[in-house]
């Protein structure tokens, strides 16, 4: 008896879901596409929410930004639950290793007292600002439109919570419980922090999710992260001998570089959609970024004196160049 072996190729009946076929044609879809496109309910939502009958459950008109297709706001990192959690788990391991390294080698005790105080005064109050960023992104996620836009906002919210926790751990490591108490007091009462606190609290009452996105993720983060983490921590403090602090803040610098790709892409697409959108975005970015620069000034000054002021001016110029690249000139 003779047996012939042959390969039989079985064509799948469907390559992907129908709604993805309508968008991208009949070909295998990526996991990101399956997990993000047209996921949010858009039709047959019969009732208005009892908690706010003026709006629909998913309402594109809460924001002044108008998009023909909200699903154009894709995330270039293509994060959905699975690969987002994997990416962050890897970063968590790195951060954990950095903390262990600093603790086990006693690097925290070796820091000159003066630098340690600068680092604590600069970083610990920021955990309250990071918590604010968490609230804001959760709000955008709740009131924004289209899963492709709200999904990464939720990730962003969780990231900010993580950053707040890392800052708390840094405070505990360098200055114990007292550092956190002092940080909170500074956030509540000190002159230096009141403008930033006011900024964060004003954002808490914004009702336009896209304006909040610009105020928090573009304007404030766009100046705060390069200023505090790149300039002051990685540059100024490290050059004076506090590179241990830079090690503990590695996640924040990496995270900002990564998320910037996404925030840039969102604004770029929204601005390119229409001149009306571009105008609104210009108005918002101009308003919030000039305010962000103002509120960061006392913080930069406290950490690095007149050098800090100069650094901030350079960062503002760099920020304007970055916005120009994505089509928003201020």
């Amino acid at each position, binding site marked *: 008896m003779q047996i012939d072996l042959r390969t039989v*190729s*079985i064509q799948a009946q469907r390559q992907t879901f129908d709604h993805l076929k309508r968008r991208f044609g009949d070909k*295998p879809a*990526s996991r990101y596409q399956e997990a993000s496109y047209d996921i949010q309910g858009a039709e047959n939502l019969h009732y208005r929410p009892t908690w706010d009958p003026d709006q629909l459950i998913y309402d594109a008109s809460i924001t002044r930004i108008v998009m023909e297709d909200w699903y154009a706001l894709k*995330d*270039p990192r*293509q994060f959905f639950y699975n690969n987002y959690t994997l990416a962050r788990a890897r970063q968590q391991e790195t951060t954990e290793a950095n903390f262990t390294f600093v603790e086990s080698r006693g690097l925290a005790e070796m820091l000159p007292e003066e630098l340690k105080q600068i680092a604590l005064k600069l970083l610990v109050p920021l955990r309250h600002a990071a918590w604010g960023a968490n609230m804001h992104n959760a709000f955008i996620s709740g009131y924004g439109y289209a899963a492709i836009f709200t999904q990464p906002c939720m990730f962003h919210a969780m990231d900010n919570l993580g950053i707040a926790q890392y800052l708390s751990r840094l405070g505990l490591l360098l200055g114990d419980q007292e550092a956190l108490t002092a940080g909170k007091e500074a956030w509540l009462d000190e002159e230096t922090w009141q403008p930033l606190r006011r900024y964060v609290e004003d954002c808490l009452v914004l009702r336009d999710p896209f304006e909040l996105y610009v105020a928090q993720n573009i304007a404030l983060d766009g100046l705060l992260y390069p200023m505090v983490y790149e300039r002051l921590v990685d540059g100024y403090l490290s050059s004076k001998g506090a590179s241990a602090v830079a090690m503990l803040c590695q996640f924040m610098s990496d995270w900002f570089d990564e998320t910037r*790709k996404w925030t840039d892409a969102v604004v770029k697409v929204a601005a390119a959609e229409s001149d009306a959108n571009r105008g609104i975005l210009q108005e918002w970015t101009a308003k919030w970024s000039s305010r962000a620069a103002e509120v960061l000034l006392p913080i930069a000054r406290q950490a690095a004196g007149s050098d800090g002021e100069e650094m901030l001016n350079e960062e503002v110029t760099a920020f304007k160049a970055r916005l120009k690249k994505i089509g928003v000139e201020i």
Partner: protein
Amino acid sequence: MSTVFIALQANEDTRPIIDAIVQDNPSAIVNREPAMVKIDVPDRMVIRRETIEEHIGRDYDLQELQINLITLSGHVDEDEDSFTLCWNS
């Protein structure tokens, strides 16, 4: 005219790579086999790091290609930015 080809495993990692190859080589013919994708291009195929990075949204090292590579034909010319297959003639 001679043809060069590359065969990659069909999975989540290679999907954007295949899209990038098709984008950079308009004459590419994509054959989707079970668990494998074979891409034929007449004469010359270029795989560019930049294009792949655009598709996957992160930094990419062209050597990562080897993980999902099944086979290829053609002379290989590889540097950090591109991976080229052609017949020297």
